[in-house]
């Protein structure tokens, strides 16, 4: 395989980054190399959502997205800190509702829930299910996840 490296520059969780990447390297591999482990490869087919990251505000599957494609983009991952205690309303609501078990899929659910609430501050239960239907949780904490998104929506509305 070709190992011709290329330098890419992008913004990672608000910080400017330069990285040398191989042509075959995917976003998860690059992030792991940079010490960020929250996006994880699981199915390797873009079907489970464990590797979700946001590129220029849009959620993508990091296992199917080449690292070189990050050049000149803004990337947000689960490690992005929020507010005083580091967690945003979605994360706080997930903690309160116990909306996870093993935690392997959790970063993907948090990022997608955040994206949903940014676009739709008062989603119905059906809208929540639909928006999160691309994320899988083998522990099946789905009922708690739905409740957490509803709680996060209420917390966001109370704040604003």
């Amino acid at each position, binding site marked *: *395989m070709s190992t011709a490296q290329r330098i890419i520059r992008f913004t990672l969780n608000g910080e400017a980054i330069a990285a040398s990447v191989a042509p075959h390297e995917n976003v998860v591999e690059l992030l792991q190399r940079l010490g960020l482990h929250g996006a994880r490869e*699981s199915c390797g087919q873009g079907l489970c959502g464990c590797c979700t990251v946001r590129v220029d505000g849009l959620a993508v599957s990091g296992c199917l997205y080449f690292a070189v494609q990050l050049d000149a983009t803004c990337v947000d991952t689960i490690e992005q800190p929020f507010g005083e205690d580091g967690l945003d309303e979605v994360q706080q609501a997930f903690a309160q509702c116990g909306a*996870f078990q093993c935690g392997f899929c959790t*970063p993907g659910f948090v990022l997608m829930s955040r994206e949903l609430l940014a676009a739709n501050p008062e989603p119905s239960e059906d809208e929540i299910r639909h928006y999160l239907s691309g*994320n899988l949780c083998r522990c099946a904490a789905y009922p708690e996840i739905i409740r957490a998104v509803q709680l996060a929506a209420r917390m966001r509305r109370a704040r604003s």
Partner: protein
Amino acid sequence: MTSERTPGPQVGRSPPRREARAKLSGRAPYVHDLVLPGMLHGKLARSTRPHARIRRIDTAAARAIEGVHAVLTGDDIRQLIPQPYHGPAFHDQPILALDKVRYAGEPLALVLASDPHVAQTAARLIEAEYEELPAVYDEVEAMRSSAIVHDVLKPAGTFPDLKHLAGKRDTNVALDFHLRRGNAARAFEHAEHVFEHTFKTQQVLHLPLEPFVSVADPGERQLTLHTASQSPSFVRIEIARLLGWPENRVRVQVPFLGGGFGAKVYVKLEALVAAAALIVRRPVKVALTMEEQFYTLTKHAATLRIKSAVDAEGRISARECEVWWNGGAYADIGPRITQKSGFTAPGPYDIEHVSIDSYALYTNLPPAGALRGFGIPQLVWAYESHADMIARALSIDPLAFRRKNLLREGRAQATGTLMRDAALDTVLERLAQRMRWDEPFERGSGSVRRGRGIGIGFKASISPTTSVAIVSVSADGSCHLLCSTVDMGQGSDTAMAQIAAEVLGIAAEDITVVHPDTDVTPFDMATLGSRSTYHMGNAVKRAAEDARDRLFALAAELGLAPETTPIPEIFRRKYGMQAGNVVGQGSFVPSYIPTDHASGQSSDVTPFWMVGATGVEIEVDTETGQVKVTRLVNLADAGRTVNPAIVDTQLSGAAIMQLGFTLFEQIEFRSGQVANASLADYKIPGMHDLPPLIENEAVTAHEHGGPFGAKGVGESGTFAVSPAIANAIEDAVGVRVTALPITAEAVYRALRASRGEPLAQ
């Protein structure tokens, strides 16, 4: 303990999981994330044949790839470990295939490289020459097949009831369990009614989203394994045995697991990375892909024949069960599943005459093991489907039929062990109330028909097994809890801290739980079979009591009032400054009397009984066969719940998992080859599969032997989901499905057959 250090009861409240912040910010550690200096990545080449002698393995092309550090085959492993076979019940599984392959997908060779892509590319170039052997795939055929998977049986020696199989040849039977109570044969002769049905279940996959992963780090004196394992203590003992080393030269560390469900028990990749790391003298990591999980461990497919004698009043007087378990090519814990689930094969019913024969079979499929229920969901599928079929045939309400036959407190179960603290009646009655069973039910119209169904199951716990815990109190009064229970999502860290905190009179949040590290945390048999809350919970409680008693004794020795002196003051008076530790230790192993080999009888087969029941309301589309579960009600006896919120999540999580096993999940095999080894072709439940209404209830109960009255619950939600759905389908549209999964096609075929217009196969 002082009053200001008593923050109120700790058991029975629901503090958030202690790892919430770490998991929600992507910072919780998993083996998956681990990178060590100089580490090599291993990728496996796998067998393409289901059963064949290996003539030659050609690794030359792989070795020629730039960046490949080494290629190892079974022969290389044998240089290091003369007998490289492992397994909890039989020493039957080679670390890499030796002499022959027994299933398609069996590990054949390992390629090591600094770059995992290089290792993967090279692994694809490895070829083998085979001499094909006849193969057997079906568990019932395996009983009499001339295709023999293992030339000679090699029991591990740990289980007394396997000893009689040592050295046995020309058989695929890896365990035969028999139970005889009363005289079933005679009871059938005089029976008013006799019912006999055969049920089947399919192979499914645990599919933890974190696939199997292990790292071995060879040090000067010690080999350290970082592994996604549910059984660190077992791994240490088994690796030490393989290497001929003392236990203290093997160290096993386990951070969080990205799901386990029974897959990550015993040795999976640990022996492979250990051997490879010792051969190349560098750290080695093997992380499987999602596809490779399909070649590692599945859940037993089973064929279950069940026959009942029923009197004119609807009482079951005799029951006969024959169960064949498809164990695949290596026994793993299959023989244990065969035996332990055999204890309860007649179901939670009071039956005078019982005959059970349960067989663990080798076949040429990927190995099968424990999956959230240890065989119980397969059995409940059969006996609770059978219960409804009998009730319908006799025009008895299914609930009334169960009430009439239910095992009551204090009665002897089929093994002869008395039922104690098994809230079967409470669970059944609460289920009936929640289902509003005595009220009229809306049946749908047109092509959408509605039905409802129930099921109830129970389980004997794994026994006898050992747990040890340590509680260490520091001079400022803060505590560490050392235990080898693996938190794989079930919330054990939180629950164990609550148990210790309850004893010590402090807040659970103030205890640090040290994750499994066999150099530090004491022995625990394994995190499996819903055993931790009861076994480790008791050990933790005893360790905390020991620490508390030692603190009190120390205070008394110093002339201080034990109950009221603040802990830091006790240490200061003893050591003159903030220094020292008080260490409490606790261990727990329940009593157990082995069953008699011929009769399966014992007065003490389990320390506690688990009870789980399910009720469903469904819609069946008669034009497509599509089944939609509109309401899912999960009931269990978990004793007194340590953390009610976590128990709730365990109940619905287990039930939703079983919903997938019931309606669509199935590993498809074509001539022994897995045909759907990916998440694209093997669907698991997602948001859209979730029933709109889900209710959970752990009934008010108390387990006399459990810590503060608690017992395990992780599997209970799986027990009765499948039969409840099949029973509801018959209730809705009058057809009976007896094989899992109950796909739309299966229902549609049954509907067509019932109309006298069967579809061609």
